[in-house]
């Protein structure tokens, strides 16, 4: 599967990621980038929906622990993703295909790199198996 190019969706919190950067420029570098207001806004149904529509992986960028604008939205996201990993495993979807990074990058320059790293991990896994 050497030509396999994973389809990745990246959700990032606007409070922690890329809010000082040039959004249009970042968008051109990051395919399927969806900035949201707080990673805690991300419903697990959105992640499942991404897989339904053919995603091979989902990267969630939340704020560092203890630094959520809404108190603990980022930690809620972390808990959700931990629970979701178990459910995805039952569907035959490897937990490594969903990852949350809790950090900060106002310029957003590290986002393309993080997407690339995750993409490389998913290349090793190959495409999501067929239903």
């Amino acid at each position, binding site marked *: 599967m050497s030509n396999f190019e994973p389809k990745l969706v990246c959700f990032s919190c606007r409070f922690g990621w890329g809010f000082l950067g040039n959004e249009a420029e970042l968008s051109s570098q990051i395919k399927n980038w969806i900035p949201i207001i707080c990673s805690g806004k991300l419903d697990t*149904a959105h992640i*499942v929906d991404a897989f339904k529509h053919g995603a091979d992986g989902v990267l969630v960028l939340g704020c560092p622990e203890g630094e959520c604008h809404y108190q603990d939205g980022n930690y809620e996201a972390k*808990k959700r993703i*931990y629970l*979701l990993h178990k*459910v995805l495993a039952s569907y*035959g979807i490897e937990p490594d295909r969903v990852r949350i990074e809790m950090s900060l990058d106002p310029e957003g320059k590290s986002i393309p790199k993080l997407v690339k790293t995750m993409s490389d991990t998913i290349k090793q896994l190959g495409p999501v198996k067929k239903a």
Partner: protein
Amino acid sequence: MVTKPKVAIAWLGSCGGCDEAVVDLNEAILDVTNAVDVIFWPVALDFKYKHIEAVNDGDIVLSIINGHVRNSEQEEVAKLLRQKSKLVLAFGACACFGGTPGMANFRTKEDIFNWVYRDSPTVVNPKGNYPQVKTVVEGKELTLPEFYEQVFALNQVIDVDYYLPGCPPPPNLIANAVTAVLEGKLPPKGSTLAPHKALCDSCKRNKTKPNKIAIKDIKRIHEIEASPDTCFLAQGVLCMGIGTRDGCGAVCIETNIPCRGCFGPVEGVADAGAKFIPALASMLDVQSDSEMKEAADSIDDLAGYLYRFSLPSSMLQKKRT
């Protein structure tokens, strides 16, 4: 002679509980049979498929179909009834969402066959025989319906007009549904003939639900002596009532058993399990990653718990292999 409206009641992949629920209308069933002509009801009356085939298309006013679709016979009956009926009502959790048997979608057909016909400790099958769609015995061909790769909800096989969930649906909602059809007072096509809100909305225990549910240690119902009046979530027992459609009459709650979700998700929710995860996560009162993992790992078979009745109609439908 005035012709009464024709009604068919069919069971596909079903345990019979839904048919029992129709019988549970008790004397009200006499009013129903006075008002309609039941032309097909395999569990109660000796009609054959050929009797349905002989009916003109659209002559059946209402087909009440319970059970999921897992084999070619079930699909054939569903399609035949659709062709002959003006209205189709998906009756019960299996027809509406795939139901409990739908959890088989977490296994492959191969896994199921190997367990049932080879590996199960009670199986003696030295010749390694597996059911075949066609077998020739003494020059004669015997046939069986084809067992599909997955369980389907009814609307994944035919067009469905209305939905009445539940395992099984309660008599009052059945009577309402049949009356609505007979009187022509039906909501828009595609509606579920049950309330839109969550079970918590009508649950008597709701007044004991704390503002912030904080569960440190998840308990299963048999592990505690549950109070008969207190919200299950306040007692650390997972109850699906917060995300499950109301209308069942809280019969499980009344017998001190938490809701398992047989009425399916509330109006507008496509995937009961995925939507329940954020609610569950927010209830876990944990202060560290290790506590989070301990609490989450204490739930046996989380996916089975979340999709107990709705796996085939969930967004991902089945296991990838």
